[in-house]
């Protein structure tokens, strides 16, 4: 990824200004309590919170939540380790790459030195150079070299630090608007339980979370409001959650709110193993066998096995010895055996993965299961970690450029272990091959939309398509058209606030219109009721999702195939569930109107695994550290310590 991809048009409407619906009385404090609709909270606020009252409240907010909120750190955590290269004093110029460049790109955009928001790809290209030069000119550094020298870096850091904090609104029960959504994001990130829907409405459930936070974390008499001190606390503990102009164009960009630990992998099929069956009936050579031999040695194989990747008689014997008294003695490493081995020998420097997984995208379930499971191997070498996907290409020959595209997009990171200072590049490669450790990809003529198992030989967008599909081959799920919870898990970001106010049509009305469209199997009407009515992605759309869930469900009868044009396939009867994404997918024909409708009620990232064509997010672009988290964990198990992915 280079600067060349920086100019991307917006699809998602930026968050609206804060609007606050005034409470029925302007008197602060306990007088507002009836609005909470909760007697326990009302009693609590009649006087100083006693332990009993807190205990009572904790039943509302959740003991776990209070414990988390009140616990050491309160979610603030230790300051992150400095970026690799970020503390250096060397000049950074065109051609440079790494965390120092990415850090500079963040700041250059925010101080509006770049023409447009820079894509934070850690690659110092001509757009970044121009931004540095503009910044140098603006602060009087002569000559304006376009080189991020120590003086320029210091001035840039100072300018960034001097940016004003976001102006926050006082939020009380009944408030609406983008700041409500940002507060919901931050409370979620700090452990609100149950999670708050990021819908930009300060309702009863949010009030419980706010009061719990006041008592548990701020240690103050609860007011049920998010005032300046509470905002200061939330903003200090959780990054993001505001809108800032970026670039000289002043484009408003919502700043992502990190929350929890991302898991970008697809959902593992219950009961499946991440290890391929190894031995008779499974793999008998290669990285899986090497991993088995290493782990058997760690488990005490005597004499130690030669780790040669060949499943021979000595490996069989050692395996049977290990299996004795633990699992059925089969001489084959099946799930039970691997589970037992992992328990005693969690780490190895080489290994193979067979990942059976599913995902829900746009309300439909997809997956790589059975013979189509994701299969890949890895090896920690002297100076790098090498991840290999062996692909059995069938049909046409794969163009050579595809192999380069994978490396260009994916070989962006290295693992870093801050405590020891160790670092190790993580390289990905796709190779041709066959056998039980290979994935099959059909290469077909012409052009079209690729999927994980079928790629088009003449794809003019192969530079982005192939790395995306490669991501599936290493078990990563899609990051588009997701439910909020899946978006949070996959990206480690709270769902964006986006459009908080909506088009002025009640959410319940839009929900009803959507259901009517589904009953009529009419995707045009569904789109008209949503995007056509002015609904955009974000908090207001989630109000519609909530309103839809409250509607009585109904059944939609089956519809026979129609020749069209455009043709429509047979559509089976559907029992609407109240889950808007599921129902839109099931009830409406697969056309552009359905897709556009689902888009606004779901969440998509702009990363390599998301939908950069429809989403704009310069902060979350291309391959992200979360996408290689699995390999950081492997490094930790093999080499010790806690490894982080950093741009290299």
């Amino acid at each position: 990824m280079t600067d060349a991809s920086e100019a991307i048009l917006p699809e998602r409407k930026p968050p609206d200004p804060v609007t606050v619906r005034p409470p029925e009385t302007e008197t602060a404090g306990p007088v507002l309590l009836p609005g909470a609709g909760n007697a326990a909270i009302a009693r609590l606020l009649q006087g100083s919170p006693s332990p009993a009252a807190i205990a009572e409240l904790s039943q509302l907010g959740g003991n776990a939540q209070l414990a988390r909120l009140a616990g050491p750190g309160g979610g603030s955590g230790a300051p992150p380790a400095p970026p690799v290269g970020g503390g250096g004093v060397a000049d950074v110029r065109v051609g440079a790459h790494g965390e120092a460049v990415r850090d500079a790109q963040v700041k250059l955009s925010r101080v509006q030195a770049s023409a447009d928001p820079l894509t934070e790809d850690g690659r110092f290209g001509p757009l970044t150079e121009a931004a540095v030069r503009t910044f140098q000119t603006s602060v009087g550094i002569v000559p304006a070299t376009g080189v991020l020298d120590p003086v320029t870096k210091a001035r840039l850091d100072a300018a960034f630090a001097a940016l004003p904090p976001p102006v926050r609104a006082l939020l009380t029960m009944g408030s609406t608007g983008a700041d409500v959504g940002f507060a919901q994001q931050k409370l979620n990130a700090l452990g609100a339980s149950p999670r708050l829907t990021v819908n930009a409405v300060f309702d009863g459930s949010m009030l419980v979370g706010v009061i719990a936070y006041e008592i548990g974390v701020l240690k103050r008499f609860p007011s049920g409001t998010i005032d300046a001190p509470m905002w200061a606390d939330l903003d200090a503990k959780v990054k993001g959650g505001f809108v800032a102009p970026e670039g000289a164009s002043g484009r408003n960009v919502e700043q992502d709110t990190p929350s929890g630990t991302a898991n970008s992998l697809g959902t593992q099929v219950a009961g499946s193993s991440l290890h391929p069956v190894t031995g008779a009936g499974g793999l008998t050579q290669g990285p899986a066998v090497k991993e088995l031999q290493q782990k058997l040695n760690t488990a005490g194989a005597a004499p130690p096995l030669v780790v040669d990747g060949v499943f021979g008689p000595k490996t069989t014997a050692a395996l049977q010895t290990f299996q004795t008294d633990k699992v059925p003695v089969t001489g084959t490493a099946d799930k039970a055996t691997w589970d037992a081995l992992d328990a005693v020998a969690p780490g190895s420097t080489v290994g193979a993965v067979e990942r059976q997984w599913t995902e829900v995208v746009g309300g439909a379930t997809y997956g790589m299961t059975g013979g189509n499971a994701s299969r890949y191997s890895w090896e920690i070498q002297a100076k790098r970690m090498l991840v290999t996907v062996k692909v059995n290409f069938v049909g046409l020959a794969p163009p050579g450029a595809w192999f380069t595209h994978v490396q260009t997009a994916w070989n962006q990171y290295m693992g870093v272990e801050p405590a020891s200072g160790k670092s190790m590049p993580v390289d990905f490669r796709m190779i041709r091959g066959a056998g039980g450790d290979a994935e099959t990809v059909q290469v077909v003529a012409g052009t079209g939309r690729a999927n994980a198992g079928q790629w088009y030989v003449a794809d003019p967008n192969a530079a982005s398509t192939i790395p995306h599909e490669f991501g599936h081959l290493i078990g990563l799920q899609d990051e588009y058209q997701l439910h909020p919870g899946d978006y949070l898990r996959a990206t480690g970001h709270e769902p964006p606030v986006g459009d908080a106010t909506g088009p002025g049509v009640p959410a319940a009305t839009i929900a009803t219109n959507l259901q009517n469209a589904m009953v009529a199997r009419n995707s045009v009407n569904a789109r008209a009721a949503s995007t056509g009515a002015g609904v955009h992605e974000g908090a207001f759309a989630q109000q519609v999702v909530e309103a839809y869930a409250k509607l009585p469900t109904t059944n939609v009868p089956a519809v026979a195939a129609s020749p069209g044009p455009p043709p429509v396939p047979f559509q089976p009867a559907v029992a609407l569930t109240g889950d808007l994404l599921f129902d839109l997918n099931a009830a409406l024909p697969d056309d552009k109107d359905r897709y556009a409708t689902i888009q606004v009620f779901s969440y998509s990232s702009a990363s390599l695994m998301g939908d950069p064509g429809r989403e704009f997010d310069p902060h979350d672009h291309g391959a992200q550290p979360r996408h290689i988290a699995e390999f950081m964990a492997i490094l930790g198990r093999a080499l010790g310590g806690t490894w982080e992915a950093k741009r290299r």
Partner: protein
Amino acid sequence: MILRLVVTDGSQTPAVAESVEVSADGAISGWRSVSEGGVGWFAGVLPAAELAGLRDLIGSAGSAPPAAPPPPDSGQEMLELAATGPIAIAGLGSPLAVAARNLLTRLTDFPRAAVAVSHPSPTVARLSHRGTDPIRIDLTTVEWRETAWRGYYESAGDWSGVAAGPPEVTAGPGWTFDIPIVPTDAAVHLTADFTILSGSTRVPVRAKHTPALAAP
């Protein structure tokens, strides 16, 4: 009807919405919306041997295949057989599933009222009518894309543009519409997006010209 396949994918622009249907007597018909062989209506008759082969595949298919989630990013493929009813086959590689998909390509050998794009000279992308029946199209905005390749799909350039034509034209046998494109000495692939009119329905379509390149 002994077989019907409908393929749809609303995530693409234009959306994929295509169908092929085979009758017991070998009649094959359908609609293509994003296609190398032209877009529009197609109809013809399969040779007896081809029909017999298809019947054998249908007969040996038995009941519906085991359910498996389709691969990530895939569209919808709904296969209807008299014996099984509708079956989702996206991601399946069974002989019948493959044969059904191939029928969509085979369909373009029987143009009835269709429009294809070709590359008759280095500076021209040509829309031309295929078949015997007229077809109404809207050429107000024809979005074209030219991709040049050297060797075995090594990118040698990529251009796009918009050509303007009449808002409604009835194309019949012999009709053509030329679009100026960028000349290149590399192998050229083309796409042309326009709209087919069917009654009051407007259907965005993409005609494609993607001749195969020889593998090394």
